């Protein structure tokens, strides 16, 4: 089999495994809030963004205007705008259709693993991207449907320490970027911003607040002596 397919399937399986408890949780909570199994599966299949799906079902149960629900989901997913901007220069070789497809699957782990791959100088091929994406997508869909069916039979996820898996996974992804210039000030700013946002504004807004703090600090840091543009063209050449 093609090396890119194998690498993509492997990477996708790791994240699929760590995210599966959250997919089950989503399905269970959705049915608990009065959605049908079909609605829960449809949300996973079409929205495909965990945190915003949970926000959505939270609001479905209340008397909230539909446009406000859509706006809330948009706001929770706002960070993806940063992702598609940051990934743009790495996928110049994709056709327009390939780009349109790839963006649908641009989740947090998909973005992080893709950027890491590109920065390690390995080709970010459409084959690798889709192998990774499809494993994650179908396992997300499968486990959220499973959770919707069997949700009420679940025990306490804390007893099995399932709740710590995703934070650990994301911490690992962050640490993989630790040799980048400006890493520590950016992480510190994002930490302060997200924790303060969590306390004073609440979840899930802390994600956007923390992200904006980190990105702003990066923009304000002194520029390196060598122009950044030169570094980028080197990357493209390698």
């Amino acid at each position, binding site marked *: 089999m093609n090396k890119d397919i194998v690498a993509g399937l492997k990477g996708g399986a*790791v994240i699929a495994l*760590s995210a599966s408890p959250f997919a089950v949780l989503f399905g269970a909570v959705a049915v608990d809030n009065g959605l*049908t199994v079909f*609605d829960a599966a449809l949300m996973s299949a*079409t929205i*495909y963004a965990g945190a915003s799906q949970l926000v*959505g079902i939270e609001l479905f149960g209340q008397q909230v205007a*539909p446009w406000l*629900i*859509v706006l809330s*989901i*948009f706001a929770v*997913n706002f*960070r*993806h*705008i940063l*992702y598609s*901007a940051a990934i*743009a220069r790495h996928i110049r070789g994709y056709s327009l259709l390939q*780009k*349109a497809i790839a*963006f*649908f699957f641009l989740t*947090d782990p998909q973005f992080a693993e893709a*950027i890491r791959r590109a920065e390690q100088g390995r080709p970010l091929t459409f084959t690798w991207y889709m192998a990774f994406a499809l494993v994650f997508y179908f396992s997300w869909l499968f486990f959220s449907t499973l959770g919707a069916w069997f949700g009420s039979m679940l025990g306490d996820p*804390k007893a099995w*320490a399932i709740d*710590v*898996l*995703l*934070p*650990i*996974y*994301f*911490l*690992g992804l*962050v*640490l*993989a*970027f630790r040799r*980048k*210039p*400006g890493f520590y000030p*950016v992480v510190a700013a*994002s*930490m302060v911003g*997200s*924790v303060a946002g969590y306390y004073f504004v609440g*979840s899930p807004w*802390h*994600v956007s607040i*923390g992200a904006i*703090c*980190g*990105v702003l600090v*990066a923009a304000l840091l002194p*520029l390196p002596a060598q*122009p*950044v*543009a030169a570094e980028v063209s080197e990357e493209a050449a390698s």
Partner: protein
Amino acid sequence: MDDLSILWLILAAALATYATRVGGYVLITRMRTLPPRLEQALNAVPAAVLTTLWAPAFFTNGWDVRLALIAAALVSLRYPGLIMLAAGWAAAMLARHLFGL
């Protein structure tokens, strides 16, 4: 809410989500050259966003979660992702079931 309006609501939410996943690309490709500070900001996106997905868990939970994250961070300096995940998970299990944290 009736079934049909939930269906439309889900599809509208899906469209809004897709818009965020395409939006940054559409905006950035409108620019011919990127100002260096914008370039630097874009480079920081992974670390800045992904930090928000673990930092609140670290600071708002008890020592069980903290120990798990610290153990995982130390292990990740030398070992690949799955081993790090296992180490953090084991630390959380030990903290909860052996030490009652």
